[in-house]
Structure formats: C-alpha cells, structure tokens
C-alpha cells in the first residue's frame, strides 16, 4: 500500500462512535503467552543442524556455521573454532577466542542471497548464434548434461588425437578446487593451467620473494606498536575476517596506524595518520625513508650485520634518495617522510606492509621491494609484531605420476617474466591470443569460476581473444559477461554446495573444511565433479597406466560414483597433509577445523637444522654473484631435494629462502635478468616512474579499490550487498571537480586513450587531487538482473598489460580526463 492510498483509507473512514468493545480490543494487554502460542519453532536458532564450513564469498575463506533445516540454509554465523575469523596469532586465538568468539564480514553474512540468487544458471546452455562479441546475443538453448559432456569431451579428445593437447587453455579461481584442475591439465597434456593470482598480488609476491624469500608474509598487527601500510586496505578489503579485530585492537593497545594511499580508504579512515600519495610512487617514499634510517643509523645493526646481504651497496644507493627528492615525486612533504621514517625505525616492534595499491602498476615489483627493505632495515621479519613468515602446513596436493607436458606455455612464462608466478600471466595470454600470436595456436579454453571480461584489463582485447578460440566452455553460477562469449556454459555451484580445503591466512598451520551444507540446488555436479567426469570420458591415465579418475587415491580401488571418487581424492589431501586426518575425521573436528596446537613460531630463520635432518640432507654449493653459498636440501637434488636452509657462519640454519639465505638489499634474483619488455632488471629496488604518466590530454590518475561490501566482480548481483552498496560513483576531489565544473551527482565521462565510460561523480575531500577512482567490480551488463546496468566498469579504459617482472595485471595504471556528460 502506498502513502496516498493509506492516507485516503484513514481519512475516508467516518467516526460513528468508537464502540466500547472496539476500544478494549485496541488497548487490551497482550501477554507473552498469547504471542508464544503463535511462535513457529521450526526455524528457530536451535532447530535443524548447524554445519561447520568455510566461506567463499571471497578468497579469504573464513570459518562459518550454517544452520540447515529441511534442506534449506536458514542462517550463517561465524565459526569460532576457525582462527581465520579471529586472529592470525595463535596465542591470541587460543586465549581470547573462547571468550570473544569469531566474526564474519558482510559478504559472508550475505551467503543466502548468493545461494538463492534467482538469476543463477540452472541448466547447461549452448549458443545458437555463431557470431561472438561484446553485446552479441548468444541465442542460448538449454541442453542436457549428457549433451554438454559429449560435446566438451569430444572437442577435447580431438585436440589430444591431433597431438596438440597444449591447444587447450584453462583458467580457474586460485583457492577453489585448483588441484584437481591442475591435475586434469597435466594428465591431459597441456601446460596452460592458469589461475587468478596474477590478477591479484603476484607483484607483492615477487617483491617479498626477492627481498626475503617468502611470497606471502603476514602482518602481525596485534602485537605491533607501529603499523605502516602502503596501499593496503585491510579494513576495506576485509579479506580475512580477523583483520579488523587485530588492527583495531592494536590501536587500542597504543599502536600507531599510518596509511599511505592516494585514497582515504576504510583503513585510512581508522588511521592515526593518512598520508595521501601520488599513485605508484610509494617506492620512492620508501627509499627516502631508508635514506633517513641509514643516514641517522636508526637501523637494527645486529640484524643487518648477521642477517642481511648487500647493505653497503644499498646504503650507497639511498644516499641521494633524500626526503626532498621523494617529495617532488610523491607529493608527500619531506618533513612527513623524515618523521615517519624516524617513528617507524624507533618504535619497536613496527610492521610495514604493502599490497595492491602500489602493486598493480608497471613499477610494482621494485617499489614493493623498496618497502620490503624497510622491514629488512629494522629487522622486521618473523619477530612478534612484524611481518611474519607463516608456516603454511595444511592439505597436501597428491603427487601426480605423469610426465610434465612437453610444450611450453602458450604465452607468458618464466623465460619472459623473471619472477614468473605459476598462476600464469592472464594479460600476456589474452593479448597474444587477441593478436593471433602465441607459441602455437590455442583452440579451446575452459574457464571455471572466473569472469575475465570483467576482471582482466582491456575488455575489448579479452573479448577478441576469447572470440579467436574455436570453442569456449564456461563453468559459472551466472551467465556472466565471459559466459556470453562461450559455446557451452554449464552451471557451477556456490560454496555452500561443495567441498574444499582451506589453509588459512594465519601464521601457524590450520586447515578448515568447506563442505556441502546443502545439495546443489539444481542437481548439477560440483565443478570438481565436472572435471572428473570429463577425465573419465577422455580415459586419462597417469604414466603407470592407471585410470586416474577411476582409481581411488586412498583405496586403490575402482570407484564408480564421481562424488565418492572425489571425496577420496580430497580425503587423501588432508590424510597426507599436516592434519593426517581423513575427510570423515575432519568433519568430526569441532568447527571442522584442524588447528596445530604448536602455534605461531617466531624468528624461525635463526633456527638451526637438527643433526638428524642434516644426516640425510645434501649441501650444495651455489654461486651467488661473487659469493659462494651453501644451500641445504632435504635430500639430494636428483631425488627431488627441496631447500630447507643455508650454511651461515659454518652453521646449518633455516635462514631466508633467498639465494644468500639472508634478507637481500641487493636483489640477486633479478641480477643479470631482463624483464618481459627486454629491458635489463636492476638488482637494486630502484624507483622508476611507471610507464603511463598523466599528460595534458589525460591529466588524472584513475585508480580503484575494494570495499567491504563487495568481492571483485562477483557479488554485484547479491541483493543484500547491493542494497548496502548499489553502485560505485567516481570519487573526485572537490577542488579538482570545481576546476572541471563538476558537481556532486553529475554524470561524467571518464575517458582514457583506450576507451570511454560513464560514471556518476561523488565529490570528496578524501582523495588526492590528481587522482580519481572507483570501487572495483561494478558495471556489469550480464550476470544478473540486479548487477546489470549498475555502476561503472573501468576495465575498458586500460590495455591488457602486465607488470614486466612478475606478470601482475595492471588494474591501476591508467590516466584519464573527466568531463561533464
């Protein structure tokens, strides 16, 4: 009933004397009993079954408890047995989680709206329109699963029969059923299995790996006294549900939080100090800080002397990187840089971290390395309150007895990218595919739980690339923008309908189980079952001649049911991993989470390798520049030995996994190498301006970021989350907008040399005046009724380009002009 009708209804009534009986009804007290009689207990908090699992609304995979009644998911709440929703430090988790309980982010709380999304794809569909392209109607026709399997497997078989299995490209998400997909590709014979990581943070991975040998150090915020973040937004991305708690608790205990970011992000808003910086210049600020720390001898002399390599050269290198030098580059006042450098170096413990802010530009890797060097100068690795090197023990990917595919990757590999990440280089693949290049023709692709049209820079290029394939299969819960270019689309499952192992983003070994809490809504196979079924139809065998997708890895017996086979494969991963427990045993653990009682270990780099391990170890002499270093392998190299340490001062120690076994201020992994453009890499964390700079025609930087309300490009059809954040207006500094004659709420054109998109302007004081930006993920034109047409996608404004060292997609390197539409 709308307002007008209601008013008319009331006003139109005539007072003919309020009957006494009526009034007593009106005013009569209602008792609890009267209400209780009407209460329906079928779905109350105690009803049904609470099934522990792990979230996958984003890649953070926090623990959840799902209440299921009569096959319906009624509630999702945090799972307090899983540390991911509480703390990344074991002491804090063991002591305080039983009292305080775990938490869950808005996306995790919105799971029902994804599970029951009415726009989900329910049946396989086949395209009837042979023409492919952005905006072209595929003319979907519903087909049976049998027809889908027949068609897809026969297309694949044709590639194998022709002796060109490498013509199959495969793309997947990076934390969901990746192992089975990787195995399928190897058994099939294609080296072209790639996954999401290189759209995310492979530049960060490369930066840290170069300096201290670990790809994924984790910030120990809660024990820190000074938290310095460059372009990381843990309170906005809220990727792991524990982040807000450990950050706010650290501040409560007196820690200072300083956030360097062009945008006043959710994290900057909670900071003691927001330092707005010109995009992609963070490396310069870090070098100037290093200059101050070295100049004033504020570095940790003992750590640097014992545990670092290349300090003298680095000191010489930063001598002219003064705060004044950096001010001109970064717009951050020299005095601010000077002060923050002193505060950071003299407050113990202090932690510095960097993520995708500076990490998605062409100069990302050396910039990130400069920031990692700040941690090196202060001994800020693996001590309480610094950057922790986590023990990642969890499930174990079973060993595959199969010869590695002989063909090289279609495009983008370790020969081209000096710090190539095994997730591949999407930008290189799609660009070369679009241009008809690549090492050989790619004919078919399978894309699982990915939407590259929206998530890879350069929409047109990606569309052209996918159009150049003979056959494209997409497995997704929606008919996404990418699915619109497919020949066959099969419905996927949500995380509430399938299995997965989740090694968590905490500092000690933890393994959480994701399990189907309800059966797939449309009777569809889970993604891994789809893969297993294809493997069976193709008759894929390992090199021992075993029918890989028929013989159960635990029982060694032939298993008829696809689901039962996968459960065995899956169970084998936890059984042979750190928990040494089967799937059934894992299910019975409290919260279905295995937590290593040993907890967080610190300063592991200094630990000596015990004599019994040394007895079977192999010591290998390695030349690192002019230095001869002795690496310790767990067994001889020809037996597949893995490096476990380094001989330092005559002692076998764990050390750091860098060529010298120490933190490297001189980056040996890049010494003498060329980047993907053929340019020689510097072995110092130099600051060089990123490739694309603003000019007279395109004077503004365009960046993007995450907010707690959405995940990448995949939650914009979730009706609850959309109600929180329905669109992504262009954030523009009030002063800049004034100069352009743009008012709050105006429709504007955002235009780069690659494309033009429309956006709504939102004026703010919370962004650098040279910068405009958008929350990432909006601007869909397919996927679902709610997502379609909401907000602005910025992918079309960028080229399909990766950072030349690590292969990270450059989502943030873009210059635009903004004008009133």
């Amino acid at each position, binding site marked *: 009933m709308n307002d007008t009708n209601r008013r008319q209804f009331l006003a139109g009534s005539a007072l003919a004397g*309020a009957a006494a009986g009526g009034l007593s009804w009106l005013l009569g007290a209602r008792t609890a009993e009267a209400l209780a009689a009407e209460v329906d207990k079928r*779905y109350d908090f105690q009803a049904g079954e609470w099934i522990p699992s792990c979230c996958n609304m984003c890649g953070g995979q926090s623990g959840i408890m799902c209440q299921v009644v009569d096959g319906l998911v009624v509630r999702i709440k945090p799972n307090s047995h899983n540390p991911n929703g509480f703390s990344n430090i074991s002491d804090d988790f063991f002591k305080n989680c039983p009292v305080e309980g775990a938490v869950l982010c808005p996306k995790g709380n919105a799971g029902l709206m994804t599970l029951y999304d009415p726009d989900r794809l329910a049946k396989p569909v086949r395209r009837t329109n042979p023409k492919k392209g952005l905006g072209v109607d595929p003319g979907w026709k519903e087909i049976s699963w049998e027809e889908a399997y027949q068609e897809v497997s026969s297309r694949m078989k044709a590639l194998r029969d022709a002796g060109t299995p490498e013509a199959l490209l495969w793309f997947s998400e990076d934390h969901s059923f990746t192992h089975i997909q990787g195995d399928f590709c190897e058994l099939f014979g294609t080296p072209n299995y790639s996954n999401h990581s290189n759209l995310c943070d492979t530049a960060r991975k490369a930066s840290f790996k170069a300096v201290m040998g670990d790809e994924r150090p984790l910030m120990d915020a809660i024990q820190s006294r000074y938290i310095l973040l460059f372009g990381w937004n843990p309170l906005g991305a809220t990727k792991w549900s524990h982040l807000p708690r450990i950050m706010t608790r650290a501040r409560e205990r007196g820690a200072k939080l300083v956030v360097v970011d062009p945008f006043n992000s959710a994290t900057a808003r909670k900071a003691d100090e927001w330092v707005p910086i010109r995009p992609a210049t963070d490396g310069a600020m870090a070098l100037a800080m290093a200059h101050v720390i070295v100049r004033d001898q504020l570095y940790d002399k003992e750590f640097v002397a014992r545990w670092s390599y290349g300090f003298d050269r680095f000191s010489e290198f930063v001598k002219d990187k003064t705060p004044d030098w950096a001010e001109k580059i970064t717009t951050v006042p020299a005095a601010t840089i000077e002060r923050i450098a002193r505060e950071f170096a003299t407050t113990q413990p202090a932690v510095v971290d960097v993520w995708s802010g500076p990490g998605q530009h062409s100069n990302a890797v050396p910039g990130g390395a400069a920031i990692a060097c700040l941690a090196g100068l202060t001994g800020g690795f693996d001590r309480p309150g610094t950057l922790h090197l986590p023990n990642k023990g969890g499930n174990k990917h079973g060993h595959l007895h199969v010869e590695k595919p002989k063909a090289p990757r279609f495009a983008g590999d370790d020969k081209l990218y000096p710090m190539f990440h095994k997730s591949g280089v999407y930008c290189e693949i799609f660009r070369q595919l679009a241009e008809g290049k690549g090492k050989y023709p790619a004919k078919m692709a399978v894309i699982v739980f990915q939407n590259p049209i929206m998530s890879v820079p350069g929409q047109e290029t990606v569309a052209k690339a996918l159009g150049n394939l003979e056959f494209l299969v997409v497995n997704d819960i929606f008919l996404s923008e990418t699915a619109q270019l497919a020949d066959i689309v099969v419905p996927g499952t949500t995380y509430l309908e399938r299995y997965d192992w989740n090694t968590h983003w905490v500092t000690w070994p933890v393994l959480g189980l994701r399990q189907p809490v309800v059966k797939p809504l449309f009777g569809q196979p889970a993604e891994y079952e789809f893969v297993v079924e294809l493997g069976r139809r193709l008759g894929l065998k390992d090199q021992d001649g075993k029918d890989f997708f028929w013989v159960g890895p635990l029982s060694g017996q032939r298993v008829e049911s696809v689901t039962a086979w996968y459960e065995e494969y899956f169970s084998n991963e936890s059984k042979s991993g750190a928990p040494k427990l089967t799937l059934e045993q894992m299910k019975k653990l409290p919260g279905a989470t295995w937590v290593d009682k040993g907890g967080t270990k610190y300063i592991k780099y200094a630990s000596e390798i015990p004599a019994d391990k040394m007895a079977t170890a192999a010591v290998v002499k390695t030349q690192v520049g002019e230095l001869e270093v002795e690496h310790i392998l767990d067994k001889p190299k020809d037996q597949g030995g893995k490096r476990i340490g380094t001989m330092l001062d005559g002692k076998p120690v764990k050390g750091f996994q860098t060529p010298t076994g120490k933190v490297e201020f001189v980056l040996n992994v890049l010494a003498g190498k060329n980047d993907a453009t053929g340019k020689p890499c510097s072995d110092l964390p130099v600051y060089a301006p990123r490739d694309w700079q603003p000019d007279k025609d395109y004077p503004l930087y365009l960046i993007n970021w995450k907010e707690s309300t959405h995940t990448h490009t995949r939650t914009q059809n979730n009706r609850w989350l959309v109600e929180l954040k329905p669109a992504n207006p262009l954030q523009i500094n009030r002063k800049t907008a004034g100069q352009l004659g743009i008012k709050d709420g105006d429709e504007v054109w955002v235009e780069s040399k690659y494309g033009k998109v429309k956006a709504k302007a939102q004026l703010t004081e919370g962004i650098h005046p040279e910068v405009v930006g958008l929350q990432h993920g909006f601007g869909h034109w397919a996927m679902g009724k709610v997502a379609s047409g909401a907000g602005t996608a910025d992918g079309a404004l960028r080229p399909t380009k990766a950072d030349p060292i690590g292969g990270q997609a450059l989502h943030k390197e873009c210059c635009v002009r903004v004008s009133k539409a």
Partner: protein
Amino acid sequence: MAREENDTPTPQADAEPSSPPDRRKLLGLLGGGAALAAVASLGGCKTTSPRAEGAQTRRWGMVIDLKRCIACKACTIACKNENKTPPGVAYGVFLEEEAGTFPHVRRTAFFRPCMQCEKSSCSKVCPTGATYHRADGIVAVDYKRCIGCRYCIAACPYGARSFDYGHDYIADAKNGYNLIPSSEYGAAYGTRAKGKSPSGNVRKCTFCLHLQDENGDYREPTACARTCMGKAIHFGDLKNPEATCLVHGEKMQALLAKRSPYRLKEELGNEPAVYYLPA
C-alpha cells in the same frame, strides 16, 4: 534499492490493506483528524506501562565502541540474515559523514540500531497501541495491531523505523529463500505473502528478542553484535551492575565507566538504551 522487478507496491497490495479484516472494520468506524489524535493519545497513555513480555529484571542495551567500529556493515547484513527483512527495511544501518578538507579529512560512521528508548517517541504517537514497551525495555511492534499509519516513523528522532511496502528480494514464491519465515517475534507471522503482515506494517529492530529463552535471557547475542568484525558492539543487561556483554564477556557497566559514553540526541530525553564510546 534492490528489488525484484516491481518498483512500486503491487496492485494486490494496494487493493488489499495489510491489516486483518476485524481491524479494518474497526478503523471503518474512525475518521477525521480529531479522532485520530484522540486515539493516538489513548495509545500513548497505554504504552507507558510495560507489558508482560520479557524479564522485568533486565534492561537490554548496547554499548557501541566507535574506536573499534570499522564501518564494514557486517552488522547490517547479519541482521538481514537473522530477521529476513525485505528491501528497503534495515533495522541497523550506518550513518556516515565526511568533514574537513584535503588532506585533513575525517570520515565518521556509526551503526544505528533501534535505541529502545525508555521514553520512546514512537510509542507515544501510535494510535493503536501496536508499539509497546516490554518489561525488559525492548520496544516491540504488534503487527496484528499496526495499521501502517507511520506516525511512529515521523516521530522517531533516530530514523530507526521503516515501512514494509511489501517488496521482495526474490519474486518466485518457491525460491528457497522465500520458504524460510523471518525469525522475528518467533516467526509468528510465517513466510511473506502479499497483503499479509508484516507487509504493510512499520518495522523496527527488536534486539533479536526471538533469541531469548523462556526466562527472557538470550540464548545467543543479537546477530549484529555476534558478527561485528571490530568487536565494537557490546550487548547485555544494563540494569544489573554485574551483567556482562553476551559476546565478549566484559562488564557492561565497566565499559560505560571507561570512556565518556554518550547517547544520541540526549537532549530529547528519550533515554535510549544504546550508548556510544567515542572514536
């Protein structure tokens, strides 16, 4: 606002008032501004005395620590999951503001559930006594009596009430989501249907009172407090000096003694049960 196709109330909902027939008959007897005002004042008198529901010995309240709140809005969505409120109805929302000039900008945000005022403005204007105070201080709405006049929405100084226009997130009645009734008031109103309460009623946060046991104590804290990522929402009894937060175990009174707490629009004298600790 996310809505399933229909952006305006459906014809069916327009034609059929949401109130039960007997109530309509009664309302048919009423008319004119004077009569409405009289009923409103009668209702107001009545609602000052608590009804039997809830424990007399409790006064449920919240202490929201703005230093811990990161404005992630998990609370708003957890509430959606718990209470299955329709599009346009959110019991706990965020109010956000930007102040200052670049680079000295300050953005503040806070979570606003219902304040569960001791002297609530909403109950005073309710013409039918549908809005009432429970013994434990929670302000509740009896949908069977609510005529959807929305006086309370106008009266609430905190904007904590919203009208249920009968919109649905998902149109298909057979969709799994639509088969689950809202848990509020013990799922007493069943699954949603056009023209049926609480569609056409005014809705508000109830501190998830359906999570209370027979004694009026909570089996489980409110959904917003339970999920809060910064651990900013403390929920518990404000009457008993020894009572602890049902989520994190701190003494509620100790939290209030720690850092100059304040309540919103204190000057109105509504005596809210929600306190804020400054950022």
